[in-house]
Protein backbone atom coordinates (compact mmCIF):
# COMPACT_ATOMS: atom_id res chain seq x y z
CA UNK A 1 0.00 0.00 0.00
CA UNK A 2 2.79 2.37 0.97
CA UNK A 3 4.61 1.62 -2.26
CA UNK A 4 1.51 2.43 -4.27
CA UNK A 5 1.05 5.77 -2.56
CA UNK A 6 4.66 6.52 -3.43
CA UNK A 7 3.95 5.56 -7.05
CA UNK A 8 1.01 7.92 -7.09
CA UNK A 9 3.06 10.81 -5.72
CA UNK A 10 5.97 10.14 -8.08
CA UNK A 11 3.81 9.83 -11.18
CA UNK A 12 1.76 12.91 -10.33
CA UNK A 13 4.94 14.93 -9.75
CA UNK A 14 6.39 13.76 -13.06
CA UNK A 15 3.16 14.60 -14.88
CA UNK A 16 3.10 18.06 -13.31
CA UNK A 17 6.69 18.57 -14.49
CA UNK A 18 5.77 17.33 -17.94
CA UNK A 19 2.81 19.70 -18.12
CA UNK A 20 5.08 22.55 -17.06
CA UNK A 21 7.57 21.73 -19.82
CA UNK A 22 4.77 21.40 -22.37
CA UNK A 23 3.13 24.69 -21.42
CA UNK A 24 5.95 27.12 -20.68
CA UNK A 25 8.87 25.19 -22.22
CA UNK A 26 8.29 26.49 -25.77
CA UNK A 27 8.88 30.06 -24.51
CA UNK A 28 12.40 29.32 -23.33
CA UNK A 29 13.91 27.45 -26.27
CA UNK A 30 17.46 28.31 -27.39
CA UNK A 31 16.58 27.72 -31.07
CA UNK A 32 13.57 28.25 -33.31
CA UNK A 33 11.72 24.89 -33.45
CA UNK A 34 9.91 25.64 -36.73
CA UNK A 35 12.40 27.76 -38.69
CA UNK A 36 14.48 25.80 -41.20
CA UNK A 37 18.20 26.53 -41.29
CA UNK A 38 19.93 24.48 -43.96
CA UNK A 39 23.42 25.35 -42.68
CA UNK A 40 22.86 23.12 -39.65
CA UNK A 41 20.97 20.25 -41.38
CA UNK A 42 21.36 16.67 -40.11
CA UNK A 43 23.95 17.35 -37.44
CA UNK A 44 24.51 14.68 -34.80
CA UNK A 45 24.09 15.57 -31.11
CA UNK A 46 26.59 18.22 -30.11
CA UNK A 47 27.14 20.88 -27.50
CA UNK A 48 25.20 23.40 -29.56
CA UNK A 49 22.30 21.04 -30.37
CA UNK A 50 22.04 18.57 -27.51
CA UNK A 51 19.95 16.03 -29.43
CA UNK A 52 21.15 16.93 -32.94
CA UNK A 53 19.27 18.58 -35.79
CA UNK A 54 16.80 17.31 -38.38
CA UNK A 55 16.81 17.40 -42.18
CA UNK A 56 15.86 21.09 -42.17
CA UNK A 57 18.45 22.01 -39.59
CA UNK A 58 15.95 22.42 -36.78
CA UNK A 59 16.99 21.55 -33.22
CA UNK A 60 15.55 18.12 -32.30
CA UNK A 61 15.42 18.86 -28.57
CA UNK A 62 13.54 22.12 -29.15
CA UNK A 63 11.07 20.38 -31.41
CA UNK A 64 10.45 17.66 -28.84
CA UNK A 65 9.56 20.31 -26.26
CA UNK A 66 7.44 22.19 -28.79
CA UNK A 67 5.58 19.00 -29.73
CA UNK A 68 4.89 17.83 -26.18
CA UNK A 69 1.75 19.90 -25.74
CA UNK A 70 0.16 18.56 -28.94
CA UNK A 71 0.39 14.92 -27.87
CA UNK A 72 -0.56 15.60 -24.27
CA UNK A 73 -3.55 17.82 -24.88
CA UNK A 74 -4.90 15.68 -27.70
CA UNK A 75 -4.74 12.57 -25.51
CA UNK A 76 -6.28 14.33 -22.53
CA UNK A 77 -9.02 15.70 -24.77
CA UNK A 78 -9.85 12.20 -26.03
CA UNK A 79 -9.97 10.75 -22.53
CA UNK A 80 -12.02 13.64 -21.16
CA UNK A 81 -14.55 13.40 -24.00
CA UNK A 82 -15.04 9.63 -23.81
CA UNK A 83 -15.13 9.79 -20.02
CA UNK A 84 -17.95 12.35 -20.10
CA UNK A 85 -19.97 10.84 -22.94
CA UNK A 86 -19.47 7.24 -21.86
CA UNK A 87 -20.34 7.86 -18.23
CA UNK A 88 -23.46 9.90 -18.94
CA UNK A 89 -24.75 7.44 -21.55
CA UNK A 90 -23.84 4.46 -19.39
CA UNK A 91 -25.51 5.56 -16.18
CA UNK A 92 -28.60 6.82 -17.98
CA UNK A 93 -29.05 3.60 -19.93
CA UNK A 94 -28.22 1.48 -16.90
CA UNK A 95 -30.64 3.27 -14.64
CA UNK A 96 -33.56 3.67 -17.02
CA UNK A 97 -33.08 0.28 -18.63
CA UNK A 98 -35.51 -1.00 -21.24
CA UNK A 99 -35.18 -0.13 -24.90
CA UNK A 100 -32.56 2.56 -24.39
CA UNK A 101 -30.31 0.19 -22.49
CA UNK A 102 -30.75 -2.48 -25.11
CA UNK A 103 -29.96 -0.12 -27.98
CA UNK A 104 -26.91 1.34 -26.27
CA UNK A 105 -25.46 -2.11 -25.58
CA UNK A 106 -26.03 -3.15 -29.20
CA UNK A 107 -24.37 0.00 -30.50
CA UNK A 108 -21.32 -0.48 -28.27
CA UNK A 109 -21.05 -4.07 -29.48
CA UNK A 110 -21.11 -2.88 -33.09
CA UNK A 111 -18.31 -0.39 -32.41
CA UNK A 112 -16.33 -3.07 -30.62
CA UNK A 113 -16.76 -5.45 -33.52
CA UNK A 114 -14.15 -3.41 -35.38
CA UNK A 115 -10.49 -4.01 -34.60
CA UNK A 116 -9.89 -0.80 -32.64
CA UNK A 117 -6.93 0.71 -34.46
CA UNK A 118 -8.51 -0.09 -37.81
CA UNK A 119 -11.66 1.78 -36.83
CA UNK A 120 -9.55 4.76 -35.81
CA UNK A 121 -7.57 4.65 -39.05
CA UNK A 122 -10.75 4.42 -41.11
CA UNK A 123 -12.56 7.26 -39.34
CA UNK A 124 -9.53 9.54 -39.44
CA UNK A 125 -8.77 8.49 -43.02
CA UNK A 126 -12.23 9.25 -44.25
CA UNK A 127 -12.69 12.51 -42.35
CA UNK A 128 -9.28 13.72 -43.51
CA UNK A 129 -6.17 14.54 -41.52
CA UNK A 130 -5.93 17.11 -38.80
CA UNK A 131 -5.80 16.93 -35.04
CA UNK A 132 -9.55 17.41 -34.56
CA UNK A 133 -10.44 14.49 -36.79
CA UNK A 134 -7.95 12.14 -35.18
CA UNK A 135 -9.29 13.09 -31.74
CA UNK A 136 -12.77 12.28 -33.02
CA UNK A 137 -11.60 8.97 -34.46
CA UNK A 138 -10.05 7.87 -31.17
CA UNK A 139 -13.21 8.89 -29.32
CA UNK A 140 -15.13 6.56 -31.64
CA UNK A 141 -12.85 3.75 -30.49
CA UNK A 142 -12.62 4.42 -26.77
CA UNK A 143 -16.11 5.55 -25.72
CA UNK A 144 -17.59 2.03 -25.65
CA UNK A 145 -15.47 0.84 -22.71
CA UNK A 146 -16.67 3.73 -20.58
CA UNK A 147 -20.32 3.39 -21.52
CA UNK A 148 -20.28 -0.35 -20.77
CA UNK A 149 -18.42 0.03 -17.49
CA UNK A 150 -20.62 2.88 -16.23
CA UNK A 151 -23.71 0.96 -17.30
CA UNK A 152 -22.75 -2.27 -15.57
CA UNK A 153 -21.83 -0.45 -12.36
CA UNK A 154 -25.16 1.39 -12.45
CA UNK A 155 -27.14 -1.80 -13.03
CA UNK A 156 -25.42 -3.42 -10.06
CA UNK A 157 -26.45 -0.57 -7.75
CA UNK A 158 -29.90 0.13 -9.18
CA UNK A 159 -31.60 -1.67 -6.32
CA UNK A 160 -29.21 -0.61 -3.59
CA UNK A 161 -30.91 0.57 -0.37
CA UNK A 162 -29.73 4.16 -0.69
CA UNK A 163 -31.19 4.45 -4.18
CA UNK A 164 -34.49 3.06 -2.93
CA UNK A 165 -34.38 5.46 -0.01
CA UNK A 166 -33.81 8.40 -2.34
CA UNK A 167 -36.76 7.25 -4.43
CA UNK A 168 -39.00 6.93 -1.41
CA UNK A 169 -38.04 10.45 -0.39
CA UNK A 170 -39.34 11.62 -3.75
CA UNK A 171 -36.07 12.39 -5.55
CA UNK A 172 -36.47 12.78 -9.31
CA UNK A 173 -34.75 10.57 -11.84
CA UNK A 174 -32.20 13.19 -12.78
CA UNK A 175 -31.28 14.00 -9.24
CA UNK A 176 -30.92 10.30 -8.38
CA UNK A 177 -28.70 9.82 -11.41
CA UNK A 178 -26.36 12.70 -10.79
CA UNK A 179 -26.44 12.91 -6.99
CA UNK A 180 -26.41 9.24 -6.04
CA UNK A 181 -25.47 7.04 -8.98
CA UNK A 182 -22.76 9.19 -10.56
CA UNK A 183 -20.53 9.61 -7.48
CA UNK A 184 -20.43 5.87 -7.01
CA UNK A 185 -19.57 5.20 -10.62
CA UNK A 186 -16.88 7.85 -11.03
CA UNK A 187 -13.98 6.18 -9.20
CA UNK A 188 -13.69 2.97 -11.26
CA UNK A 189 -14.35 4.86 -14.50
CA UNK A 190 -11.67 7.37 -13.55
CA UNK A 191 -9.17 4.54 -13.06
CA UNK A 192 -9.99 3.24 -16.53
CA UNK A 193 -9.46 6.74 -17.86
CA UNK A 194 -6.07 7.04 -16.18
CA UNK A 195 -5.06 3.61 -17.49
CA UNK A 196 -6.12 4.64 -20.99
CA UNK A 197 -4.15 7.89 -21.29
CA UNK A 198 -0.94 6.06 -22.19
CA UNK A 199 -2.59 3.93 -24.82
CA UNK A 200 -4.41 6.96 -26.28
CA UNK A 201 -1.08 8.79 -26.60
CA UNK A 202 0.35 5.76 -28.39
CA UNK A 203 -2.64 5.45 -30.73
CA UNK A 204 -2.54 9.17 -31.46
CA UNK A 205 1.17 8.97 -32.28
CA UNK A 206 0.43 5.93 -34.46
CA UNK A 207 -2.22 7.85 -36.40
CA UNK A 208 0.14 10.79 -36.85
CA UNK A 209 2.86 8.41 -37.94
CA UNK A 210 0.55 7.14 -40.69
CA UNK A 211 0.00 10.75 -41.72
CA UNK A 212 -3.50 10.97 -40.24
CA UNK A 213 -3.04 13.17 -37.21
CA UNK A 214 -1.07 16.33 -36.85
CA UNK A 215 -0.16 18.20 -40.02
CA UNK A 216 3.18 19.85 -40.75
CA UNK A 217 4.90 21.82 -39.41
CA UNK A 218 3.51 20.72 -36.02
CA UNK A 219 6.21 18.94 -34.05
CA UNK A 220 3.88 16.17 -32.87
CA UNK A 221 6.19 13.27 -32.09
CA UNK A 222 4.57 10.61 -34.24
CA UNK A 223 4.45 12.94 -37.24
CA UNK A 224 8.08 13.96 -36.68
CA UNK A 225 9.16 10.32 -36.60
CA UNK A 226 7.24 9.63 -39.78
CA UNK A 227 9.07 12.48 -41.50
CA UNK A 228 12.40 11.35 -40.07
CA UNK A 229 12.14 7.76 -41.28
CA UNK A 230 13.49 8.84 -44.68
CA UNK A 231 16.64 9.99 -42.88
CA UNK A 232 16.95 6.87 -40.73
CA UNK A 233 20.38 6.06 -42.12
CA UNK A 234 21.83 9.59 -41.98
CA UNK A 235 20.17 10.86 -38.82
CA UNK A 236 18.88 8.06 -36.57
CA UNK A 237 18.96 10.41 -33.55
CA UNK A 238 15.75 12.18 -34.62
CA UNK A 239 13.78 8.95 -34.32
CA UNK A 240 15.62 7.70 -31.27
CA UNK A 241 15.04 10.83 -29.17
CA UNK A 242 11.44 11.38 -30.24
CA UNK A 243 10.75 7.71 -29.57
CA UNK A 244 12.32 7.93 -26.12
CA UNK A 245 10.26 11.02 -25.32
CA UNK A 246 7.09 9.21 -26.35
CA UNK A 247 8.09 6.14 -24.39
CA UNK A 248 8.84 8.09 -21.20
CA UNK A 249 5.56 10.00 -21.31
CA UNK A 250 3.53 6.84 -21.87
CA UNK A 251 5.39 5.06 -19.07
CA UNK A 252 4.66 7.89 -16.64
CA UNK A 253 0.94 7.80 -17.48
CA UNK A 254 0.85 4.01 -17.20
CA UNK A 255 2.49 4.31 -13.79
CA UNK A 256 -0.18 6.82 -12.76
CA UNK A 257 -2.96 4.51 -13.96
CA UNK A 258 -1.54 1.51 -12.13
CA UNK A 259 -0.97 3.32 -8.86
CA UNK A 260 -4.36 5.00 -9.02
CA UNK A 261 -5.97 1.59 -9.50
CA UNK A 262 -4.12 0.22 -6.49
CA UNK A 263 -4.85 3.30 -4.38
CA UNK A 264 -8.57 3.27 -5.11
CA UNK A 265 -8.54 -0.51 -4.98
CA UNK A 266 -11.00 -1.09 -7.79
CA UNK A 267 -9.14 -4.08 -9.15
CA UNK A 268 -12.09 -6.37 -8.68
CA UNK A 269 -14.39 -4.16 -10.67
CA UNK A 270 -12.26 -3.75 -13.77
Amino acid at each position, binding site marked *: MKRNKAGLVISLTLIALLALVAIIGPNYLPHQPFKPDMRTALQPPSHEHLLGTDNLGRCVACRIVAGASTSLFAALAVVAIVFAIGTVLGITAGYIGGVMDHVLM*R*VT*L*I*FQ*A*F*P*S*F*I*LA*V*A*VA*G*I*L*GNGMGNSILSLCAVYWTTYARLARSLTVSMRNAPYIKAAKVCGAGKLSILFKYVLPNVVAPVLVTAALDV*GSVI*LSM*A*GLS*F*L*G*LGAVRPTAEW*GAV*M*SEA*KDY*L*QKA*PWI*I*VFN*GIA*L*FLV*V*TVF*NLLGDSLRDALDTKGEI
Partner: protein
Amino acid sequence: MRKFLRNLAQTLILIVGITFLSFTLSYLSPGDPAQQMLKRSGMMVTEETLQKARHELGLDQPMLVQYGLWLRNLVKGDMGTSVKSRKAVALELGKRLPNTALLAVVSMLLVIAISTPVGLLCAWWKDGPLDNAFRFVTYLFASLPSFFISLIMMYVLSLRLKWFPVIGSVSVKGIVMPALVLSLTLSAWYIRQVRAIVLREMEKGYIDGLMSRGLSTGSILFRHVLRNCMVPLVTLFGISIGNLMGGATIVESIFSWPGVGKLAVDSITARDYPMIQGYVVWMALIFLAINFLVDLSYRFLDPRIRKGA
Protein backbone atom coordinates in the same frame (compact mmCIF):
# COMPACT_ATOMS: atom_id res chain seq x y z
CA MET B 1 -29.38 -25.52 -30.70
CA ARG B 2 -31.54 -22.65 -29.49
CA LYS B 3 -28.46 -20.99 -28.09
CA PHE B 4 -26.73 -21.44 -31.43
CA LEU B 5 -29.63 -19.79 -33.26
CA ARG B 6 -29.64 -16.91 -30.81
CA ASN B 7 -25.92 -16.46 -31.37
CA LEU B 8 -26.49 -16.49 -35.09
CA ALA B 9 -29.22 -13.86 -34.82
CA GLN B 10 -26.97 -11.65 -32.72
CA THR B 11 -24.16 -12.08 -35.21
CA LEU B 12 -26.50 -11.06 -38.02
CA ILE B 13 -27.45 -7.89 -36.13
CA LEU B 14 -23.75 -7.20 -35.68
CA ILE B 15 -23.10 -7.68 -39.39
CA VAL B 16 -25.85 -5.24 -40.28
CA GLY B 17 -24.46 -2.80 -37.72
CA ILE B 18 -20.91 -3.14 -39.01
CA THR B 19 -21.91 -2.59 -42.62
CA PHE B 20 -24.17 0.31 -41.68
CA LEU B 21 -21.44 2.04 -39.69
CA SER B 22 -18.93 1.54 -42.50
CA PHE B 23 -21.42 2.88 -45.01
CA THR B 24 -22.19 5.91 -42.86
CA LEU B 25 -18.50 6.71 -42.65
CA SER B 26 -18.16 6.90 -46.41
CA TYR B 27 -21.46 8.70 -46.67
CA LEU B 28 -19.97 11.41 -44.50
CA SER B 29 -16.74 11.55 -46.47
CA PRO B 30 -16.01 14.94 -48.00
CA GLY B 31 -15.49 13.72 -51.59
CA ASP B 32 -18.29 13.75 -54.17
CA PRO B 33 -18.18 10.44 -56.09
CA ALA B 34 -20.19 11.88 -58.99
CA GLN B 35 -17.69 14.67 -59.51
CA GLN B 36 -14.81 12.21 -59.28
CA MET B 37 -16.42 9.90 -61.80
CA LEU B 38 -16.92 12.74 -64.28
CA LYS B 39 -13.36 13.94 -63.88
CA ARG B 40 -12.04 10.44 -64.47
CA SER B 41 -14.06 9.91 -67.62
CA GLY B 42 -12.89 13.28 -68.90
CA MET B 43 -16.44 14.67 -69.21
CA MET B 44 -17.23 18.28 -68.61
CA VAL B 45 -18.32 18.94 -65.06
CA THR B 46 -21.46 21.04 -65.29
CA GLU B 47 -24.46 21.19 -63.01
CA GLU B 48 -26.43 19.18 -65.56
CA THR B 49 -23.94 16.33 -66.02
CA LEU B 50 -23.40 16.25 -62.27
CA GLN B 51 -27.12 15.78 -61.69
CA LYS B 52 -27.19 12.99 -64.23
CA ALA B 53 -24.16 11.25 -62.77
CA ARG B 54 -25.60 11.52 -59.27
CA HIS B 55 -28.79 9.93 -60.53
CA GLU B 56 -26.88 7.11 -62.21
CA LEU B 57 -24.90 6.42 -59.06
CA GLY B 58 -28.05 6.56 -56.96
CA LEU B 59 -26.69 9.49 -54.95
CA ASP B 60 -30.00 11.37 -55.17
CA GLN B 61 -31.74 8.62 -53.21
CA PRO B 62 -32.35 8.82 -49.45
CA MET B 63 -29.46 7.51 -47.33
CA LEU B 64 -31.19 4.30 -46.29
CA VAL B 65 -31.99 3.40 -49.90
CA GLN B 66 -28.38 4.03 -50.82
CA TYR B 67 -27.32 1.79 -47.96
CA GLY B 68 -29.65 -0.93 -49.24
CA LEU B 69 -28.19 -0.72 -52.74
CA TRP B 70 -24.67 -0.76 -51.39
CA LEU B 71 -25.43 -3.75 -49.18
CA ARG B 72 -26.94 -5.65 -52.10
CA ASN B 73 -23.77 -5.09 -54.10
CA LEU B 74 -21.67 -6.06 -51.10
CA VAL B 75 -23.46 -9.40 -50.77
CA LYS B 76 -22.82 -9.99 -54.46
CA GLY B 77 -19.14 -9.35 -53.80
CA ASP B 78 -19.11 -5.99 -55.55
CA MET B 79 -17.50 -3.39 -53.30
CA GLY B 80 -17.07 -0.72 -55.92
CA THR B 81 -14.05 0.36 -57.89
CA SER B 82 -10.84 1.72 -56.51
CA VAL B 83 -10.41 5.39 -57.41
CA LYS B 84 -6.65 4.98 -57.58
CA SER B 85 -6.09 1.74 -59.49
CA ARG B 86 -9.51 1.62 -61.18
CA LYS B 87 -9.76 -2.07 -60.38
CA ALA B 88 -12.45 -3.73 -58.32
CA VAL B 89 -11.95 -3.14 -54.59
CA ALA B 90 -12.73 -6.77 -53.78
CA LEU B 91 -10.10 -7.93 -56.26
CA GLU B 92 -7.38 -5.66 -54.87
CA LEU B 93 -8.17 -6.62 -51.28
CA GLY B 94 -8.33 -10.30 -52.18
CA LYS B 95 -4.93 -10.12 -53.78
CA ARG B 96 -3.34 -8.60 -50.67
CA LEU B 97 -5.22 -10.56 -48.04
CA PRO B 98 -3.11 -13.77 -48.21
CA ASN B 99 0.00 -11.74 -47.39
CA THR B 100 -1.57 -10.21 -44.31
CA ALA B 101 -2.94 -13.59 -43.28
CA LEU B 102 0.53 -15.12 -43.62
CA LEU B 103 2.05 -12.34 -41.51
CA ALA B 104 -0.70 -12.69 -38.91
CA VAL B 105 -0.37 -16.48 -38.65
CA VAL B 106 3.42 -16.38 -38.33
CA SER B 107 3.23 -13.60 -35.73
CA MET B 108 0.51 -15.38 -33.78
CA LEU B 109 2.49 -18.63 -33.71
CA LEU B 110 5.48 -16.69 -32.40
CA VAL B 111 3.31 -15.02 -29.75
CA ILE B 112 1.95 -18.36 -28.58
CA ALA B 113 5.40 -19.94 -28.60
CA ILE B 114 6.87 -17.08 -26.56
CA SER B 115 4.14 -16.13 -24.16
CA THR B 116 2.53 -19.43 -23.12
CA PRO B 117 5.66 -20.95 -21.53
CA VAL B 118 6.85 -17.60 -20.17
CA GLY B 119 3.44 -16.76 -18.71
CA LEU B 120 3.13 -20.21 -17.11
CA LEU B 121 6.59 -20.03 -15.57
CA CYS B 122 6.09 -16.47 -14.33
CA ALA B 123 2.92 -17.58 -12.56
CA TRP B 124 4.59 -20.67 -11.11
CA TRP B 125 7.48 -18.67 -9.70
CA LYS B 126 5.33 -15.69 -8.78
CA ASP B 127 7.45 -12.74 -7.58
CA GLY B 128 10.62 -14.68 -8.34
CA PRO B 129 13.48 -13.30 -10.40
CA LEU B 130 12.01 -14.52 -13.71
CA ASP B 131 8.61 -13.02 -12.91
CA ASN B 132 10.13 -9.69 -11.90
CA ALA B 133 12.37 -9.57 -14.96
CA PHE B 134 9.45 -10.20 -17.29
CA ARG B 135 7.20 -7.81 -15.42
CA PHE B 136 9.78 -5.13 -16.17
CA VAL B 137 10.17 -6.17 -19.81
CA THR B 138 6.43 -6.33 -20.46
CA TYR B 139 5.98 -2.96 -18.78
CA LEU B 140 8.57 -1.47 -21.11
CA PHE B 141 6.99 -2.97 -24.20
CA ALA B 142 3.54 -1.76 -23.21
CA SER B 143 4.83 1.81 -23.49
CA LEU B 144 6.82 1.41 -26.70
CA PRO B 145 5.06 2.35 -29.93
CA SER B 146 5.36 -0.41 -32.51
CA PHE B 147 6.63 2.02 -35.14
CA PHE B 148 9.50 2.97 -32.87
CA ILE B 149 10.48 -0.68 -32.36
CA SER B 150 10.15 -1.21 -36.13
CA LEU B 151 12.40 1.70 -37.02
CA ILE B 152 15.05 0.79 -34.44
CA MET B 153 15.01 -2.80 -35.66
CA MET B 154 15.28 -1.60 -39.23
CA TYR B 155 18.20 0.65 -38.35
CA VAL B 156 20.13 -2.08 -36.52
CA LEU B 157 19.30 -5.18 -38.55
CA SER B 158 18.94 -3.70 -42.05
CA LEU B 159 21.02 -0.56 -42.23
CA ARG B 160 23.86 -1.41 -39.84
CA LEU B 161 24.17 -5.21 -39.88
CA LYS B 162 22.61 -5.60 -43.33
CA TRP B 163 21.00 -8.92 -42.38
CA PHE B 164 17.62 -8.09 -43.89
CA PRO B 165 16.56 -5.97 -46.86
CA VAL B 166 15.04 -2.56 -46.11
CA ILE B 167 12.24 -3.02 -48.62
CA GLY B 168 10.32 -6.11 -47.60
CA SER B 169 9.34 -8.80 -50.05
CA VAL B 170 7.15 -11.84 -49.52
CA SER B 171 9.97 -14.17 -48.55
CA VAL B 172 11.50 -15.72 -45.46
CA LYS B 173 13.90 -12.80 -45.10
CA GLY B 174 11.15 -10.28 -45.69
CA ILE B 175 8.77 -11.61 -43.04
CA VAL B 176 11.23 -11.82 -40.14
CA MET B 177 11.21 -8.19 -39.06
CA PRO B 178 7.50 -7.40 -39.41
CA ALA B 179 6.57 -10.66 -37.68
CA LEU B 180 9.06 -9.99 -34.88
CA VAL B 181 7.72 -6.50 -34.21
CA LEU B 182 4.10 -7.65 -34.21
CA SER B 183 4.77 -10.65 -32.01
CA LEU B 184 7.01 -8.83 -29.51
CA THR B 185 4.51 -6.08 -28.81
CA LEU B 186 1.63 -8.53 -28.57
CA SER B 187 3.62 -11.00 -26.45
CA ALA B 188 4.25 -8.33 -23.84
CA TRP B 189 0.51 -8.03 -23.33
CA TYR B 190 -0.12 -11.75 -23.70
CA ILE B 191 2.42 -12.80 -21.07
CA ARG B 192 0.70 -10.68 -18.43
CA GLN B 193 -2.71 -12.10 -19.36
CA VAL B 194 -1.49 -15.71 -19.37
CA ARG B 195 0.15 -15.15 -16.01
CA ALA B 196 -3.08 -13.77 -14.52
CA ILE B 197 -5.19 -16.63 -15.91
CA VAL B 198 -2.76 -19.27 -14.66
CA LEU B 199 -2.52 -17.67 -11.21
CA ARG B 200 -6.29 -17.86 -10.87
CA GLU B 201 -6.21 -21.51 -11.91
CA MET B 202 -3.44 -22.37 -9.49
CA GLU B 203 -5.53 -21.33 -6.51
CA LYS B 204 -7.67 -24.39 -7.13
CA GLY B 205 -7.33 -27.43 -4.91
CA TYR B 206 -6.38 -29.95 -7.55
CA ILE B 207 -2.95 -28.34 -7.93
CA ASP B 208 -2.12 -29.29 -4.32
CA GLY B 209 -3.37 -32.78 -5.11
CA LEU B 210 -1.10 -33.08 -8.11
CA MET B 211 1.85 -31.77 -6.14
CA SER B 212 1.26 -34.20 -3.29
CA ARG B 213 1.22 -37.00 -5.81
CA GLY B 214 4.75 -35.95 -6.69
CA LEU B 215 4.17 -34.81 -10.26
CA SER B 216 6.90 -32.71 -11.79
CA THR B 217 6.47 -28.97 -12.29
CA GLY B 218 6.54 -29.38 -16.05
CA SER B 219 3.87 -32.03 -16.00
CA ILE B 220 1.56 -30.03 -13.71
CA LEU B 221 1.96 -26.85 -15.70
CA PHE B 222 1.87 -28.09 -19.24
CA ARG B 223 -0.41 -31.12 -18.92
CA HIS B 224 -2.91 -30.05 -16.31
CA VAL B 225 -2.93 -26.31 -15.75
CA LEU B 226 -2.52 -25.42 -19.42
CA ARG B 227 -5.37 -27.70 -20.43
CA ASN B 228 -7.71 -26.18 -17.87
CA CYS B 229 -6.77 -22.68 -18.98
CA MET B 230 -7.54 -23.35 -22.62
CA VAL B 231 -10.91 -21.56 -22.73
CA PRO B 232 -9.70 -18.19 -21.39
CA LEU B 233 -6.52 -18.51 -23.43
CA VAL B 234 -8.45 -19.06 -26.64
CA THR B 235 -10.68 -16.09 -25.78
CA LEU B 236 -7.52 -14.03 -25.45
CA PHE B 237 -6.47 -15.26 -28.86
CA GLY B 238 -9.74 -14.01 -30.36
CA ILE B 239 -9.29 -10.56 -28.81
CA SER B 240 -5.66 -10.23 -29.83
CA ILE B 241 -6.36 -10.97 -33.49
CA GLY B 242 -7.94 -7.51 -33.57
CA ASN B 243 -4.77 -5.96 -32.13
CA LEU B 244 -2.71 -7.86 -34.63
CA MET B 245 -4.80 -6.64 -37.56
CA GLY B 246 -4.56 -3.05 -36.31
CA GLY B 247 -0.83 -3.29 -35.63
CA ALA B 248 -0.33 -4.72 -39.10
CA THR B 249 -1.35 -1.40 -40.70
CA ILE B 250 1.66 0.37 -39.17
CA VAL B 251 4.14 -2.49 -39.44
CA GLU B 252 3.20 -3.38 -43.01
CA SER B 253 3.62 0.17 -44.20
CA ILE B 254 7.02 0.55 -42.50
CA PHE B 255 8.43 -2.70 -43.86
CA SER B 256 6.62 -2.39 -47.21
CA TRP B 257 4.91 -5.74 -46.64
CA PRO B 258 2.32 -5.95 -49.45
CA GLY B 259 -0.69 -6.72 -47.27
CA VAL B 260 -4.09 -5.10 -46.78
CA GLY B 261 -2.76 -2.82 -44.04
CA LYS B 262 -0.28 -1.17 -46.39
CA LEU B 263 -2.97 -1.02 -49.05
CA ALA B 264 -5.25 0.80 -46.60
CA VAL B 265 -2.62 3.35 -45.63
CA ASP B 266 -1.77 3.98 -49.28
CA SER B 267 -5.48 4.34 -50.07
CA ILE B 268 -5.89 6.91 -47.32
CA THR B 269 -3.03 8.97 -48.74
CA ALA B 270 -4.68 8.75 -52.16
CA ARG B 271 -8.15 9.57 -50.74
CA ASP B 272 -9.40 6.31 -52.23
CA TYR B 273 -12.64 6.09 -50.23
CA PRO B 274 -14.18 2.94 -51.76
CA MET B 275 -10.96 1.12 -50.92
CA ILE B 276 -10.90 2.35 -47.30
CA GLN B 277 -14.53 1.39 -46.94
CA GLY B 278 -13.94 -2.08 -48.36
CA TYR B 279 -10.96 -2.54 -46.08
CA VAL B 280 -12.90 -1.61 -42.93
CA VAL B 281 -15.85 -3.84 -43.77
CA TRP B 282 -13.64 -6.80 -44.58
CA MET B 283 -11.48 -6.46 -41.50
CA ALA B 284 -14.51 -6.18 -39.21
CA LEU B 285 -16.18 -9.18 -40.83
CA ILE B 286 -13.02 -11.29 -40.62
CA PHE B 287 -12.58 -10.27 -36.98
CA LEU B 288 -16.19 -11.25 -36.34
CA ALA B 289 -15.78 -14.59 -38.12
CA ILE B 290 -12.67 -15.45 -36.12
CA ASN B 291 -14.42 -14.66 -32.86
CA PHE B 292 -17.40 -16.73 -33.95
CA LEU B 293 -15.02 -19.66 -34.51
CA VAL B 294 -13.44 -18.98 -31.13
CA ASP B 295 -16.90 -19.27 -29.55
CA LEU B 296 -17.50 -22.53 -31.35
CA SER B 297 -14.15 -23.92 -30.25
CA TYR B 298 -15.15 -23.76 -26.58
CA ARG B 299 -17.40 -26.73 -27.19
CA PHE B 300 -14.42 -28.79 -28.21
CA LEU B 301 -12.09 -27.49 -25.54
CA ASP B 302 -14.37 -27.90 -22.57
CA PRO B 303 -16.61 -30.98 -22.31
CA ARG B 304 -18.70 -29.21 -19.66
CA ILE B 305 -19.83 -26.61 -22.21
CA ARG B 306 -20.54 -29.37 -24.74
CA LYS B 307 -22.71 -31.36 -22.36
CA GLY B 308 -24.26 -28.40 -20.59
CA ALA B 309 -25.57 -26.82 -23.77
